[in-house]
């Protein structure tokens, strides 16, 4: 019997067409070590990361590929570094648009320009702009490549989870397909099913926070106009389209325009092409030819779940936390969730680490979500002041920013997403006071050029013991984990980023390329103790 499962949205790419699985005819529900629900960027990255770490993973998505629409657009350096570890960054960099220069306007007045001026000696740029469907397609391409190399990843399209029942040693799922329903079991379930997370709803879990009363119109326009590849942001734009507007370049001659429309609007009317064209015409000026490529209106919230781990169910990405779009912290923070979760779950599934290690996913990524919510809430309050007095101060800042550089540091059109440092994490071990703050325990390792390659390309398969100016063993085994040694000569970048005032350094680095502990000498017992701590065995 065929069940009708209409798409909720149109696809940009069909990536994993429905195919009947033998599980659907099984006499008893088949149990999988890990099931991921949701085929967005976070679900795909989770499946890829787990599969590459050798964990059998099944991904269920209620569609058959990547949805239409640019949506998540700015992918930050840390995301690209994680994607590079996953083997997906190459095509992203090739297709994506790199930008460094931003301009900030108030009304029709250019207040100032800023250059992201990325620090030299990193493989990845500060940011690329790439439409979400392409980001997803490149992750899926990397999954296909990983599968060809034997990574145990399976994706089932048109598999919609309709019931979830947690049990002591597994989670039971009811899944609908075009061939009817079937049952599955997961030892671990990862919910990457987006901001409206049906799984979160089925489990009756809360999602508290602040709803901002505003509507944003995204208009993606295709034009050959000779605009530079820059980010242009307007406060109170002269073309009278709400409180703010943003113009951003995407690949394929497409430009993202965001108009802030305010709260009391007529959605259907605002989405009429003639009305959108009137706004775009006013912004671009006369005589610019363009086509409307994709348009959408959205509102946003800043909120998160209390906890991201609920027994054997783990939430990642928008299902766990949602932020305003200012500062590119949505998909970027979700990819950091994946980075944090995959190695921990792999060690738990492999029986190396205790389940308690997964509680550190919760504490570390709740910390990350809090940081993102704080930053994006501040940006939102600056862009849309909530009281007359806050508007007065906001406009005073803008009035000074044209001539006084100090005021530009207060202008907030979104603080660009930087990776999270897990200060105070229970997994963190020894620190060394003379070494730089940026590489303290909990920090993501900054990249550095090595002879013919990059530092980050050498990190992240498992735990790494990195010696700078000091030889470390090629491998070290402790607590069921094999730590790979990496002995490096000091280069100017390694000295600046890792040694600071220390003569030499030994770093224990987690599989997500975050620093676990560091010393200025090699002490095998101290390394083993820090490793135990970093895998939740202490």
């Amino acid at each position: 019997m065929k069940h009708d499962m209409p798409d909720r949205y149109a696809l940009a790419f069909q990536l994993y067409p429905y195919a009947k699985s033998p599980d659907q005819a099984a006499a008893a529900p088949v149990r999988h070590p890990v099931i991921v629900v949701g085929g967005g960027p976070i679900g795909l990255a989770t499946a890829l990361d787990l599969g590459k770490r050798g964990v059998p993973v099944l991904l269920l998505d209620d569609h058959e590929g990547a949805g239409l629409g640019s949506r998540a657009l700015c992918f930050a350096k840390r995301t690209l570094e994680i994607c590079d570890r996953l083997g997906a960054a190459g095509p992203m960099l090739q297709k994506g648009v790199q930008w460094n220069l931003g301009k900030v306007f108030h009304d029709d007045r250019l207040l100032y320009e800023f250059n992201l001026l990325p620090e030299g000696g990193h493989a990845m740029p500060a940011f690329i702009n790439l439409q979400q469907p392409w980001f997803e397609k490149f992750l899926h391409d990397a999954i296909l490549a990983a599968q060809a190399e034997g990574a145990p990843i399976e994706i089932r399209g048109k598999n919609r989870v309709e019931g979830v029942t947690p049990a002591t040693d597994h989670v039971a799922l009811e899944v609908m397909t075009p061939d009817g329903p079937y049952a599955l079991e997961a030892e671990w379930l990862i919910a990457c099913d987006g901001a409206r997370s049906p799984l979160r709803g089925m489990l009756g879990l809360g999602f508290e926070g602040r709803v901002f009363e505003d509507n944003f119109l995204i208009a993606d326009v295709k034009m050959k106009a000779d605009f530079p590849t820059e980010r242009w942001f307007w406060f109170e734009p002269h073309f009278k389209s709400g409180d703010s507007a943003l113009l951003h370049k995407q690949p394929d001659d497409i430009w993202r325009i965001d108009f802030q429309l305010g709260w009391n609007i007529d959605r259907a009317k605002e989405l009429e092409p003639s009305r959108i064209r009137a706004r775009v015409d006013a912004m671009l000026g006369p005589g610019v030819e363009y086509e409307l490529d994709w348009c959408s209106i959205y509102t946003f919230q800043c909120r998160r779940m209390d906890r991201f781990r609920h027994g054997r169910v783990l939430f990642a990405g928008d299902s766990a936390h949602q932020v305003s779009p200012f500062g590119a912290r949505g998909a970027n923070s979700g990819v950091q969730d994946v980075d944090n979760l995959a190695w921990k779950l792999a060690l738990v599934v492999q029986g190396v680490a205790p389940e308690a290690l997964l509680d550190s996913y919760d504490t570390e990524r709740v910390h990350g979500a809090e940081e993102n919510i704080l930053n994006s809430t501040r940006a939102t309050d600056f862009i849309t002041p909530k009281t007359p007095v806050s508007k007065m101060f906001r406009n005073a800042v803008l009035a000074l920013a044209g001539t006084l550089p100090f005021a530009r540091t207060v202008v907030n059109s979104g603080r660009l997403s930087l990776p999270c440092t897990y200060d105070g994490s229970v997994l963190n071990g020894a620190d060394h006071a003379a070494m730089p703050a940026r590489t303290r325990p909990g920090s993501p390792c900054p990249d550095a050029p090595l002879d013919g390659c990059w530092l980050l390309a050498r990190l992240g398969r498992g735990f790494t013991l990195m010696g700078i100016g000091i030889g470390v063993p090629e491998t070290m085994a402790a607590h069921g984990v094999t730590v790979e040694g990496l002995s490096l000569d000091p280069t100017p970048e390694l000295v600046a980023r890792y040694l600071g005032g220390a003569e030499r350094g030994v770093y224990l680095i987690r599989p997500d390329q975050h620093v676990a502990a560091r010393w200025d000498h090699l002490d095998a017992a101290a390394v083993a103790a820090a490793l135990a701590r970093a895998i939740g065995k202490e």
Partner: protein
Amino acid sequence: MLITSPNMTKPDESYAFLIATHEGLSETESHALNARLILILMNHIGDAAVLAEAMRLARDPSAV
């Protein structure tokens, strides 16, 4: 640490200058000027702890 003991080199002159600076402005313009002035002074002071102390004191002058 916020200085709350007398610290202005010329209190009368500076106060008179503040009032004169607002001369001829509408109330809205004066509020905007004050906002700019606060921001400029905030930058001059710089230290976040001192600024927070000053703001708390302004909100509740009895809390010295």
